[in-house]
């Protein structure tokens, strides 16, 4: 007597008609946390020990000085993103977790130091990307560009012709658009018969 069914490696029962392999995707998580010593270490430690693939993590205080907001970009499969959100929410100093959608405002800042032999051309590219020149000397020019990941990648490509000496990127800071709050202070974990288990945002 053998059963008919099978599960895939994520423990999800395989529906023979719709076998779905979960491809990793990029997710932007925003977490509101207590602004206290050790929270950053706790969050980064969580992502490392549970092997979540993290692209960037930024943190800063909010209007309420006792709270900080973290923006975390991860690249994971759908079950991985769900698990990351729930594990993050479980940390005691984490107040709320939300995944931001594509519509949200997402910005990164990059500082690029390029060779200074062709200042006019460098300046033109900086203008084109709405950036700013921070430092200019006979040998190097340092500029900043702010934008989404695509724009920053493009700008970096454009600067390559001069020879990039050094680069630093901040990682994403993000807020949801319009009236919608990025992270509710009063949140409630609600679970229904829906097979997706929500974090605070679903």
């Amino acid at each position, binding site marked *: 007597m053998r059963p008919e069914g099978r599960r895939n490696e994520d423990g999800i029962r395989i529906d023979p008609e719709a076998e779905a392999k979960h491809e990793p995707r990029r997710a932007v998580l925003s977490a509101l946390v207590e602004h206290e010593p050790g929270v950053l270490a706790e969050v980064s430690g969580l992502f490392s020990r549970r092997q979540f693939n993290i692209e960037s993590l930024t943190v800063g205080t909010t209007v309420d000085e006792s709270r900080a907001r973290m923006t975390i970009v991860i690249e994971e499969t759908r079950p991985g993103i769900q698990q990351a959100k729930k594990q993050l929410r479980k940390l005691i100093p984490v107040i709320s977790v939300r995944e931001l959608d594509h519509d949200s405002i997402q910005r990164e800042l990059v500082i690029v130091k390029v060779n200074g032999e062709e200042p006019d051309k460098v300046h033109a590219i900086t203008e084109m990307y709405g950036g700013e020149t921070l430092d200019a000397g006979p040998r190097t020019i340092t500029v900043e560009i702010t934008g989404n990941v695509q724009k920053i990648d493009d700008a970096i490509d454009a600067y390559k012709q001069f020879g990039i000496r050094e680069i630093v990127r901040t990682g994403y800071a993000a807020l949801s658009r319009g009236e919608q709050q990025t992270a509710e202070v009063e949140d409630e974990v609600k*679970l229904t018969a829906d097979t997706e288990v929500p974090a605070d945002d679903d």
Partner: protein
Amino acid sequence: MSDSAQTPHADEVETEATDDRPDEPEGESHVEPIETGADAVVAALKNAGVDYLFGVQGGAIMPVYDALYSESDMTHVTMAHEQGAVHAADAYGIVTGDPGVCMATSGPGATNLVTGIADASMDSDPLIALTGQVPTDLVGNDAFQETDTIGVTQPITKYNHFAASPDEVGDDVSTAFALADEGRQGPTLVDLPKDVTQPETDVEPGKPEMPDTYNPPEKADEDAVSEVADVISDAEKPIILAGGGVIKANASDELRAFAKEHDIPVMTTMPGTGAFDQTHELSMGIAGMHGTGYANMAITLTDCMLAIGTRFDDRLTGDVKTFAPDADIVHVDIDPAEISKNVKADYPLLGDAKAVLDQLADAMTDSPRAEAWREQCQTWKDEYPLDYEMPEDRPLKPQYIVEQFDEAMPDDTIVTAGVGQHQMWAWQYWTWTEPRTWVTSHGLGTMGYGFPAAIGAKLAKPDKEVIAFEGDGSFLMTSQELSVAVRENLDITIVVLNNEAVGMVRQWQDGFYEGRRMASEYPWVPEFDKLAEAYGARGFRLEDYDEVDEVIQKALAYDGPAVVDAIIDPEENVYPMVPSGGDNSLFALSEDHLDEI
């Protein structure tokens, strides 16, 4: 951990384990005014109803010990090693349901607690660790006995906190207590720098209270519960998989009532063992790698699994691809992060197991029509009973020894075990009928757990019989706690199933490493009966079948710690066995069988 002899720090003194507290008048609880941060720590523990503390003295924790000097409501039990303290406190938490408390000094004291804290974290055991720390102005300077205890324990605690002020330290301990106890239980730690516990304060700590941001779920969504009630009643092959969460939620009665009302067979995970009465006809025994064949058959062929308070550990599921592949899985858990972590839940019910079982009982309008399935389950029980071959003469079979002690002891006996083959034999061959009687290291697999756990369990439940099963390798790791059991005159029986090996490793080497027994054979272990006598305990050596009854009677009759060194068949192995990452329905009943699957 007391300071090493080489230390030039003259102000850090060696301390004695003897209890020389002044005699307090009996029955009078005398409330000391709070004068220091350490007093506030002690007051917070008292507020929380703590009666036992397990620990080892040392430099940085001395102010807290000093505050305990005239304390009459709480008893501090000095252990031989911090690992003994944390396992004893852990077992206290398991058998009572209330957080056990352990304490240690900074540095090595704290790091010696680490294994036990990780153990409690894996098993969701309620535990509080209080660790001394060097004064705040020395933190970060690599001071004597300084370790970043917060950093070290962060991944293995539910919550940890570096106490920053004498005025707040009492409430810090109260919060840690509440967090260890509420929601999904787990270990918490408060790190206590000497300049927080020593200075003056008169701030009284409050009762244990959870932070505002921590809101564990209670009841499950009502609509989801009704839907699940229909799914269960429509099932043809239903089973209940009861995990440790059932026991943690004190939901064993609700589980039993629900299963009996709707005639649904029940199996338990290792931590869930005792949640259901194994003598009941609906019992399907124990599930997983060394679980019963019939439980693992039922897991594989069920069409509806009601899994309660389990995290679907790999030792339970084997290969998730073959785990209950035809089943609708209803997963009841208090921790949202467990839902669909390892096995996707078709019907998640988020809440406390007791509350959700009550909701489900109310929502059920019909019972599943599962006569044929129950018959099938009975057929498997008849076909794959737990079994071993009994020889005519020595060597002793370990399973037989477990069975004989089981027969000689009351149903509500607390059984502890270390980790390895002896643990599996105890789990398989004891008859489990009551919750909070099976105390072992499930998730972490900590060798040496069983005996110090028995000390904590006996102090927590002095009216219950306590037996510790240990292996020779396992007992070797924490046997120094015999000094404590003798000092406290604890009536505990320790049975060492001695095969002169770390037998589980030896079994795997024979099965999967072509019999290359690297570092697994222990012909050099001491005679444990003599070791016991050296500590002042009673020791018995057991080698022959005709001595078994007599030794059991004598060991149980002895009023104090008794060690039975049982020399067992060194070739005996644990079966059934689902090879690691295997298919639960393909369990080996013997070594020959292992090659076939």
